[in-house]
């Protein structure tokens, strides 16, 4: 009994150490937060468009097909790196991608899309981050996969890259099923 009491703190200490060590070595990004919007309907909002003189109304526009929603800005370097992969998704897979131009200068955004190509079916304006907050966005770029019922199924924080492109396409296919 006495020995047990003496030894138990030491065992507890090593157990705690083990837990800490496990959390340290597993591949995990502590700054990445789970989205609250998974399996929820897309937010209801209205937004002006960058390239047309029209108003975009959600959730009306999220019907019939799987849609990506991509938050981007010209001041965001990872968005620049991600752009070719968005082009690829729209050109090769015919995916509908809605771009949300987050806190950006509209003139610059137009130039950017002229230069790099436009993978977006619509480009929405979000000058004061109100749409970003509605979608729970906290760092650019972020990409959401929305299914044909207008339900958000997946969120990627950070850019689509060479490394995660295939995995991302797999996610899209899963949602398309």
């Amino acid at each position: 009994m006495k020995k047990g009491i003496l030894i138990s703190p030491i065992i507890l200490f090593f157990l705690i150490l083990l837990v800490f060590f496990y959390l340290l070595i597993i591949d995990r990004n502590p700054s990445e937060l789970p989205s609250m919007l998974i399996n929820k309907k897309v937010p209801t909002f209205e937004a002006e468009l960058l390239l047309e003189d029209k108003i975009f109304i959600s959730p009306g526009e999220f019907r019939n097909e799987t849609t990506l929603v991509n938050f981007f800005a010209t001041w965001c370097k990872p968005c620049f790196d991600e752009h070719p992969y968005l082009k690829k998704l729209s050109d090769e897979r015919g995916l509908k991608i809605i771009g949300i131009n987050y806190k950006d200068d509209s003139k610059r955004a137009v130039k950017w899309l002229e230069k790099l190509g436009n993978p977006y079916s619509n480009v929405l304006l979000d000058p004061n981050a109100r749409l970003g907050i509605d979608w729970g966005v906290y760092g650019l770029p972020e990409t959401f996969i929305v299914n044909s019922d207008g339900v958000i199924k997946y969120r990627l924080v950070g850019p689509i890259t060479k490394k995660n492109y295939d995995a991302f396409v797999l996610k899209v296919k899963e949602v398309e099923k």
Partner: protein
Amino acid sequence: MQKILLTILIYLMTTQIVAINCYSVEPDEFLQNPKKELRARNISKNVRCLVCQNQSIDESSAALAKDLRILIRIKIEQGNSDEEIYSFLTERYGDFILLNPPFKISTLLLWVLPFVFLAIGIFVIFLHNNKSKKLDYNK
């Protein structure tokens, strides 16, 4: 020599205090009504900045923190209650946005475990005491 060291120490301490009390709310964000402004400040102190995650949006100068501060003030002006504003934020960003985690089933361990450990500690000390008392009497 001691005096110099003391003044340096006091200087460091006071500047440190000033540094601790700093905040990032910019004058153009202030609401006209001081009562409402105070409410906004109080809410901001409880809301985590998701960019620099150990700061509240009251202290952070990140762009998202500023956007959220402005949004909170707009919501206050629109007549929303504090609870409505908190639930607006947690619906979008989760409980993580609150610096003070709410008491829920998923956070039960977080709140209860310290007291469990305290109870175990008291129990162990009590047991130990009892034993040593007995030993004394036997002698």
